[in-house]
């Protein structure tokens, strides 16, 4: 990609801003007009529910939502947010969700790099069978494991703790697979060189294998964070107290209103409270995320 960009930027006057502009123009040309149109439609399709949710979340709860009054209504108000915060202890739930998501991710990164390293570089008897079994775990829906997992948590006396929510996810079949594939692309020679320099296995992993695997780790982290941020049934089953429950359980108070019609303003306010931080996280780190995906894909 960089080689194709080199010629136009060299033909225009120097200067960072102008260079960037020409770069953008060039990219625009790369995608022809119809491509842009398709992308725009897809992007708008993705954005509309979110934008609608934002608009409706300030719709007055006393005003019906009609075809002619589909957005924020005649008197926008923040009262839905106030009511949402009053209905559920979201502050505590935020803390819990962040601890759960971060706790799971940190342990996962340790376990998947160690396991991936072993599978990639340490041949042992039964390796293929073991790896096959780990992959097989990807096929088991997590809802089928709720009862045995609950039983384990109960016997460990961890019921109703944050650790109980995290524990079943400390290992990740997908993560092990991803790290194994990534580590296998690291040239053997680098490994050998590190050994010759006197590095032990942990130092070799740390200095030789982890750095080129970082894009893959970021990609894995993204999928892990968004999955555990949204997980509902397992935390609901294994916790009873506000102290150990995540945001999604708080959101259930708004979304489980089966008896009566949907309270869209309240539901959207609650939803935005829950997804907001994730959304901001992605917007802030958008560039890093996309780059890491590109890198891990190019390897």
């Amino acid at each position: 990609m960089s080689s194709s960009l080199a010629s136009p930027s060299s033909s225009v006057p120097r200067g960072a801003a102008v260079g960037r502009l020409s770069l953008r123009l060039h990219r625009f040309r790369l995608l022809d007009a119809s491509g842009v149109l398709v992308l725009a439609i897809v992007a708008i399709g993705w954005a509309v529910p979110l934008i609608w949710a934002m608009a409706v979340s300030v719709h007055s709860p006393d005003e019906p939502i009609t075809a002619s009054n589909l957005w924020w209504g005649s008197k926008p108000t923040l009262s839905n947010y106030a009511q949402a915060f009053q209905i559920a202890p979201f502050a505590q739930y935020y803390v819990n969700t962040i601890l759960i998501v971060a706790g799971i991710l940190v342990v996962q990164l340790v376990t998947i790099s160690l396991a991936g390293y072993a599978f990639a570089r340490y041949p042992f008897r039964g390796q293929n069978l073991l790896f096959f079994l780990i992959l097989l775990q990807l096929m088991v829906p997590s809802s089928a494991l709720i009862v045995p997992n609950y039983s384990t948590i109960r016997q460990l006396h961890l019921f109703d703790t944050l650790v109980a929510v995290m524990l079943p996810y400390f290992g990740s079949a997908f993560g092990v697979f991803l790290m194994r594939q990534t580590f296998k692309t690291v040239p053997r020679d680098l490994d050998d060189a590190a050994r010759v320099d006197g590095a032990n296995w942990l130092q070799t992993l740390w200095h030789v294998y982890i750095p080129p695997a970082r894009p893959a780790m970021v990609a894995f982290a993204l999928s892990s964070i968004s999955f555990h941020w949204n997980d509902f049934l397992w935390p609901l089953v294994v916790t009873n107290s506000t102290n150990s429950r995540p945001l999604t359980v708080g959101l259930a108070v708004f979304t489980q209103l089966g008896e009566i019609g949907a309270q869209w303003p309240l539901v959207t306010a609650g939803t935005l409270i829950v997804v907001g931080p994730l959304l901001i996280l992605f917007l802030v780190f958008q560039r890093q995320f996309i780059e890491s995906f590109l890198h891990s894909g190019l390897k």
Partner: protein
Amino acid sequence: MIAEQWRRLLAASATAVLAATLSACGGSAATAAPSAVALTFYYPVAVPGPITQLIDGYISKFEQQNPGITVKPVLSGGYPDTLTKIETTIKGGGTPPDVAVMLSTDLYSLVDSNAIQPLDSQIAAAGGNNYLNGFYPAFLANSRYQGHVWSLPFQRSTPVLYYNRDMFQAAGLDPTKGPANYQEMVADAQKLTKPDGSTWGIEISSDGIPYWLFQSFVIGNGANVVGSAPNQVSFDTPQVVSALQDFADLSAKYHVMPSGILQWANMPNDFVAGKAAMIWHSSGSLANILKQAKFNVGVSYTVGEQGFGAPTGGGNLYMLKGIPADHQAAAWKFIQFMSSNDIQADWSMHTGYIAASPAAYQTAAMKAYLAKTPQASVAPDGIEYAKAELAAHDNAQVQKFLGDAVQAVLTGKSDPSSALRSAQQQATQLLSAFKN
């Protein structure tokens, strides 16, 4: 440099995990007071509002009246989540909650999975039939099985007919009462439907739990889809077939209702927006409809060919099996308290559920509320027209068979008699595995 960052990140997260563990342990240790009976109470949420605060308030009142008993309320998601949580606990060998609110129609599934215990001895001690007679009989219709009483009503509702009084007036109809039977409802709807499509005479939802509103047609025809035992259903009798024909005729023959499957969640919105002059919906939607409607709202009963008729709906209080004897006594006190007149009156005023007993409507607080909101007295006055909601073994599946038949007819894929006959066959086959 980068290694340093990683190390710091690891250290920070290890501390966080440790802190989380410690705080969680501290939390569970602090709640257990010595010599007190500590009950656990699971409840689902199905209506909006500060439900958790209301429940917390009732519990602190109960704890004041009953020193030595503490109750830990646990929000357990929706009705299906509550069932999953309890079944997981039992299958995983854990301690179930002492008391839980679950659908009244979950009765047979709960008995089949050996999850609940009957309340007979406690009811006998509280006055037996005299005590039970205090409740609306319809709300106990899904409580009896094998000669036992298994649950008491807590958050109950029925479908009602909401109508736009201003539109009734404008169309030359009597705005003080709704239609008395199906024929009147069709005639009213024909006058209310505007030819330009801006207003439909009536909207009746057929998604989510289609069997529920359909039961209103059937009960209004003088029949029901519930069988004489929980391993039987009655889906293909002539009254049921003609009820489904009536439902489909509203759009196909009389053109007073939009065709296709109407969304349950959208009905109140269509009504308050003036898109529908009448809707059938849960009695629990009243508060929200009154809050949003800019016109006079009338409330009446759902109808069939022979007059008013409706199924009951909602959740009951159950006592779980396998809890210690001292917990059983305390749990019964709590069940009695939660179904008592004062609590039921307060719960009804704040949520829109119908209180469990006529006496709750005689409390001072409720009388003051009804003076301000006369529409709220319509649903309890109509309980006499209410019959049991569809319940059987393997209930979710049986309800789905009937719901699928209703939807197949409303979308024009089948005719009432063959759709219902096949639903009956499916249900009979499924239920043949159960002895009674």
